[in-house]
């Protein structure tokens, strides 16, 4: 449990938010040409990093907007928050 600084609403309790998993997984540009292995990689395989992880969050019980977060999963410390479409900060 921690506080999240929503880029649209400001600082709110984490329970207002929904975690959306790993960020920057691009949808395949040519889905029809993907092999089964590539589909598995896109759909299921995750880094599941212990340490600094890039992820998506949704302010589900607030503005309902999606945004990105850089968070250290070993201590839940939030390093950066940036809007969808923005470039991730260098780490």
């Amino acid at each position, binding site marked *: *449990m921690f506080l999240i600084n929503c880029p649209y609403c400001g600082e709110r309790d984490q329970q207002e938010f929904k975690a959306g*998993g790993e960020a920057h997984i691009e949808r395949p540009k040519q889905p029809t040409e993907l092999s089964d292995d590539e589909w*598995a990689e896109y759909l299921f395989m995750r880094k*599941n990093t*212990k340490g600094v992880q890039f992820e998506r969050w949704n302010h589900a019980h607030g503005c309902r907007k999606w945004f990105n977060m850089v968070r250290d*999963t*070993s201590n839940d410390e939030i390093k950066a928050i940036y809007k969808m479409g923005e470039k991730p900060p260098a780490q």
Partner: protein
Amino acid sequence: MRNKYSVFSLIKNALSYHENWQRAWKDPTPKKEYDAVIVGGGGHGLATAYYLAKKHNMNNIAVVEKGWIGGGNTGRNTTIIRSNYLWDASAGLYDHALKIWEGLSQELNYNVMFSQRGVMNLAHNLQDVRDLKRRTHANRLNGIDAVYLSTEEVKKFCPIINTSPDIRYPVLGGTLQRRAGTARHDAVAWGYARGADAMGVDIIQNCEVKGIKRNGDSVEGIETTKGFIKTKKVGVVAAGHSSVIANMAGLRLPLESKPLQALVSEPVKPIIDTVVMSNAVHAYVSQSDKGELVIGAGTDDYVSYTQKGSHQIVEGTLNAILELYPIFSRMRMLRQWGGIVDICPDASPILSKTSIKGLYFNCGWGTGGFKATPGSGDLFAHTIANDEPHELNAAFNLNRFVSGDLVDEHGAAAVAH
């Protein structure tokens, strides 16, 4: 030579004030090379080592554990054991484990306090009723004992449940597996450790894996905080940290690691003599032999390795417990803790070979691995020793995420684990 535990050894040691008990397992320094190394000294890892030595004559093996044995999820779960899973593959896997549980204390000469007190699952809406009836039928077709109970029968089996139709989520019925129950989680780790050690397995604690050495597509050994250990076979049983180990070998797994919480109350006199689970309101409760209520809460929805978890998760579970059991309204909670569980997209485990020769993974047990400990160890040992899965864990391979042949317990069975 390992001394046998018996009433006579108890009396003998009582006379010397319990000061001369033999060590249950040694504290060896790692050898330079082993035939196989198990990464992770929890219940599943120790059981794997035990069955490798016992059934496959692999005695030159080691278990490496970064902390102390049984100090991870083995010592953090709510000790529930059952096998009433919907799909054939899961039913086969979990009932295999349950059958081993039934003779485990005798086999290990270690009292794991296995208690077949029954597990009851409650239905709170019409869909629950349909799902649980379907699951009962599926269980019986697979030879697993299961009965469907009406609201009155639920009340009769566990009188402290509030079966009033006026509560927010009334009890509409339930299922009961009488062979299910609980066991003492620490004793399971200790019993398997003692058994494995007696057959020559080295159990190396405070030894963290730092890297996996590969030669092309084969495993050559592991780098640890106690030096390099050469081995051709590495079985990873690292629960929430499976992805961390996989990354060392350049693999990615379909896992997300999340905190799962549990809590116990102050100890009270016997009040609930079974295990009651309710998936719809997410509350499950049993009572330990010490008298504490053992309560399982849910997972947080974000990836975290903090072993903490959020307060609102516990609050939600306790709200549900209080509505179902008004008698507990003045109970005080004694301790709360979290463990990191590795969850697969289909909520079924992975016991599998990988694309790297000699590297095996036993992971993805998510929120319900304890019940499978003996079966998981047995089948994973088979997989490592023969380099082929046993027919009971063949469905739980990594390739199912490529082929699409998932064992979808999450969606279909609505089973909280």
